[in-house]
Structures are given as C-alpha cells and as structure tokens.
C-alpha cells in the first residue's frame, strides 16, 4: 500500500465511524415507540351506561370514553378511545368493535338490510358480526361485555387489522 491509499483508508474509516456514531443513537431514539407504550390507560372494563337505555334487538353505536389516559407527555381525562356496537337481546348484551378488521375503517349498521357494512371497501357482516362478503379477512371483533348492576361494561380492545386471526395490538 502506498502512502496515499493509507491516508484514503484512514479518512474513509473515520468518515464511516462518524456516521455510525451518529446513526446508532438516532436509531435508538427513533424506535422508542416500538419498545415502550406511548399511549396507555387502564385495561379495566369501561362503563357504557344503563342497560335499560338500549333498545331490544337493534345495534346501537356507543362511544367509549376512558376516565384516565396517557398520551405521550399528557395525562388526560375523559378521552374517547373509539366506539362499539352494542346489541341487547332480552337480558344479554353483546359488543362488537366498530373497527373494520380489514383496514380499520368504521363499520356502519345498514338497518334495512339488517347487516353491518364497511363504507370503505364494502365488507359486509351479518347482524352477529360474522363475515358475509367483501375483503375483510375475519368477522367483526367481539369485545368482552358484561352487565353489572344494570350497567353495561365493555373491555375495549383494538385488534390488528388485515389478518385472519385476531391478535391484540
């Protein structure tokens, strides 16, 4: 090796080292949200109101509000996380997430057809949330729902869209 190529090798090495020295912490910093929960709240079931207020045999869309919520640097109160379709049949209540399992649009209730329909890509589900047609890979996501002292409580969860089997996000 001549003198010039030794110098060139050294310059390249230091130049690369400088790049790496900056890139490594930058990567650690930027991927922080992949390692830590940046939004969070309690996983407890959320009160969605009186069971008596729900009509019999007809799905109703109810907003899900959580009392306390952490969003990155903020501590928030009364935050709307999403919505669920609640359906009462006699004494029992069932809850379906409004989030379409296809790409996450909000599923609507088509009252005349008695079907759930996603307005984005026309996925259709029957009144129990089972998949009828369209691109959705699975049925609408059922959420744990209980009636306690006359009040409806739902464990609100989000599931990964676009996959056949349900996995929590």
């Amino acid at each position: 090796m001549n003198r010039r190529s030794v110098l060139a090798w050294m310059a390249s090495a230091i130049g690369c080292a400088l790049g790496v020295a900056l890139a490594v912490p930058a990567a650690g910093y930027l991927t922080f949200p992949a390692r830590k929960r940046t939004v969070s709240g309690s996983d407890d079931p959320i009160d969605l109101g009186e069971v008596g207020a729900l009509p019999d045999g007809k799905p109703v869309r109810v907003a899900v509000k959580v009392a306390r919520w952490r969003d990155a640097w903020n501590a928030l109160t009364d935050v709307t996380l999403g919505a669920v379709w609640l359906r009462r049949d006699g004494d029992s209540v069932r809850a379906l997430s409004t989030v379409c399992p296809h790409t996450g649009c909000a599923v609507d209730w088509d009252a005349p057809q008695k079907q759930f329909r996603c307005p984005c890509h026309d996925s259709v589900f029957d009144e129990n949330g089972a998949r009828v047609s369209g691109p959705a890979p699975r049925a609408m996501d059922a959420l744990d729902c209980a009636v306690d002292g006359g009040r409806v409580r739902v464990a609100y969860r989000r599931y990964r869209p676009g996959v056949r089997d349900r996995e929590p996000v």
Partner: protein
Amino acid sequence: MKLADWLDERTGYRSILRHALDEPVRGGARWSYVFGSALVFLLLVQAATGALLAAFYAPSSTDAWASVAYVQQEVTLGWFIRGLHSSGASAMMILTALHLLQVTLYGAYRRPREVNWWVGLALMALLFAFALTGYLLPWDQKGYWATQVATSLLGAMPLVGPWCKRVLIGGPEYGNLTLTHFYALHVLALPAAAAVLTFVHVALMRKHGITPGWRQSDAQLDAAAEPFWPRQALYDFVAMSVVLALMVVSVARSHGAPLEAPADPSSAYDARPEWYFLPLYQLLKFFPGRLEVLAALGAPAVAGGLLFWLPLADRGPSRNPAARKQFVGIVVLLLLGAAALGAEASIADAENPSYQKFRQRADRESERALTLARQGVPVAGGTAVYDNDPTARARRLYGERCAGCHQLDGAGERRAPDLDGWSSRAWLRDFLRDPENPRFYGKTKVRGMKPVKQTGDELEALVEFVYAQGGDGADAARAEKGRAVFEAAGCDDCHQTDGAKGDEGPNLGGRASKKWLHDFLADPSEPRFFGDKNQMPKFRGKLEDADLDALADLLRAERARQ
C-alpha cells in the same frame, strides 16, 4: 461493480464525486483549513438532531415544555440527542469564531473573495438567529424570560419596533403563535436560508480555491499542491471527530441540556441568555434607559459593519498579517472584547450571592417540575404539571370543597373545626379539654361530649392513645397507659375502638389514619363516624379516590405537626 456502472451511466455520480474530492489544495493540506469543514459537519449534525427532536416536539404553549420533558426523561437517548443539539449550537459559535480568525489571519476575505466573506458574515448572523429562535422552543423559564428580553429590545426600536415585535411574536403577548412562529423560523426558514448560503459559500470557495499561507511564492504553492482527497479530507474528519467527541463528553457529563421549570409568566425570574449572548447582555448594563436599545441593536450593527468593511479597506499588496496589523487587530479586538464582556458577566453572577441563591431555587423548581412531569402533564400544560403534586392538588381541593366551613393556614370559614394542626398532639390535648370550643365542634351539631378532667401525665397518656389510632409516630408504652385511662374515665361508654360499630360518639379505631380519613371524607355520616349528628357533605361520588387520598395526606401532614 455492474450496479455502480449502471448508476454512473445514468447519473454521472463518479465525475461529481471526483470533482468534489479532487479539488486542488494549493500549498498542500493543512490543519488550519479544517474549521470550515467542521462547521459544515456541525450544520449537518444540527439538521439531523433537529429533525429527530422535531419528531417528538409539539410547538404549542400548552405542550412544548411537556413534550421536551418527555424527550428529556422518557424517550430512549432523548437527553443525549437534545444535548447534542444544544452543545452543537455552542460548538458552532466557537468554531465560527475560530474560522473567522483563521480567515482574517490568512487574509482570505481580500480580493477576489470579498463576496464570500460577506456570505460568511450572513451565515454568522443566521447562526445567532438560530440560537435565538431555538432557545424559546422548550418554553421553560430560562428560554421564556431570556427571549422576553430579546423581543422587548426589538419592540423598543424606534418607529417600527412595536409593529415588528407584534408580527414576530404573533400578537401583543407570548402564546401559541410565538411558538409556531419561532418554530417555523427555526426549522424551515432559517435552515433553508442556511442551506442556500452554505452552498454559495462552498461554491465560491471552490471557485477561488482555498486561500493558502502567505509565506510561499506562487511557484512553491503550485509545486506543493495536492488534491483534497485524501489528506485534507483526513484532517477534516479528524477535526470533526474531535469536535464530536468533545460534544459527547460534555453532554454525557451534564446529562444533556438543562430543562428548567415550565414558563410561568407570573414568576419573578432573573433571566440570563445563553453564554454566546452574554457579551450583549453585559453591554446593556452600561447603557441605561432608552440608550439600551441603541446598545442592543447598535453594538451588533457596528461590529457587523466593521467586518463588512474589512475587505474594502484591506487592499495592500501583502497578505502577511504583520503587514495588515490594523485589520487583523480589529477582528481580534472584537472577539476579545466579546470574550471579556462575557467573562465579566459570568464573574459578576458567580460572585453575586443573591443570584446564586436564585439559581439554586430555579434548579430545585426544575427538578420538582420534571419529577412531576413523569406522571404526565395535564392538558392545561406547562405549569399545570404542579397539579400532579398531591399537596398542590389537595390545597386546590381544600379551597374548592372544604374552605367553605373549615379554616386551614388562615384560609377558609370557621363554621366547623379548624384544621390547623388537626389531630396533632397539641390539637388533641386542647380538644379533649374543651371539645365544644368554637375552634372544635362548638359551632356544629356534633356535641354532647364532656370535657376530659384528667390532667398531667394522665391527659398526655390519653392524648397518646387517641393519637396512636392514626398509626405511625406514637409512643406505644404511653398509648397503652392511655388505654387504661380511657377505660377508667368511661370514655368507652360512648366511643368504641374496633373501627366498625357506631355508638353515642364516633368509633375511634384507626382514627386519623389514611384509610380512616379516606372513608370519613367519603361519608362522614356513617354510624361509626358522626352518624345522625353529621352535617358535613359526603364526598363519595363527588371526588375520586385519588382526590380523597390527596386530602387525607393534607390532613395527615397537619397531624404530624409538633
């Protein structure tokens, strides 16, 4: 190799690279040429760390401080990235001074390089603008108050001052628009200007070539010429590494840039600018009243004007600094003057005990705010972080819910027992001797208890027995003696101590413990508390458990008083 050929055929990148790297350096590579390259490197570091910070920052008066606190404490290496950005600004100031000095010494501003000198001066002005706008963004006490000084000076400019200030800060006062304006300047307008000017600066440097030393003849310089790559590049990279290493060490030692308490317009804050503005700050002390504006805007204008004029004046035949003493002297004097003023300001502060005391207070406040921010900052933002402090929250709740009847620390009505020192030994002693005194239950329906006749040791033992119900801090032996007095005196005719049953008087079991207070505040009309005699509102359903606990802690602090 194939891919490289394919790419070269379509982009011609090899000739661009060759053009960039084979720049001839007349007289050969030198260590004194590294400053410019190091500055370009720092500019890139600032752009990169700035982009990273922007990914986690919210420029609003409610969110700015909280988001920076989040970067500083929660985000992986956030403190390091932010520290690099801050120390990068300082490093740029130092390297700019060195670059200026080197260029002056070599006479590099002289014909035909005048325009490039002026472009360099413009870049230097941009550097100060970057510092000034960036400083405010964390919306902490220091940034807020230091920038207030700067914008007040702008507003004090004759004629156009008030209008300019209003446009810059987005209204008559600091607020959201001040941050969005400063943010837009800091991350969009100034970087765009800096990129263009840096490009022109480097292009003009390439056009005229680097200014070689003054000792050799043209023939010698040409003979010793070598391309930029690899030797000068190696020197430059080594310089960059040294700069970066110094920055990393300084950031690691200080654990990043300080973040003071959130901006509080109601506080008294002894504002100091960042060190590179200290000379100007010190200068203002010499110019009282209206002359201050003159100094603040005049001094930089005079210094800038002198530097601008330099290449027009220095037209002699020789580049040898010895032959251009007056011109080199101007620049050296300017830099020394700035350094002297800055040092004077620092020394004055270091020797000022009241300023030092203020600094300690500000540091404690910052630590407290950052600790509270770990619980998340309420949406009201900034100083609302103090609401996370249970005593602050409890005092607010006390003001809202309790002060209508109870007095504490001189605040509140006196329709129900005073809470100063509530259930402390002194309070219990006074209470036992005179339960229906207006200071205790005299103004309420909770009446019928006879004053305790015991005195001396017996009274003290009884006090200790009641005090011990609250848990910690009691003298067990004396409390045990007190139980005997309690039973002998017939207190147990009316008061149970199992913490469950009701009787004529309140059940004393667990009295003044945190749990007892929580339950009592939730519903004082329970049989084990005041039962039918209760007049105090129930707070179950009105206050959350955390709030009840906060109030319980507030009262427990009174209990602990001597």
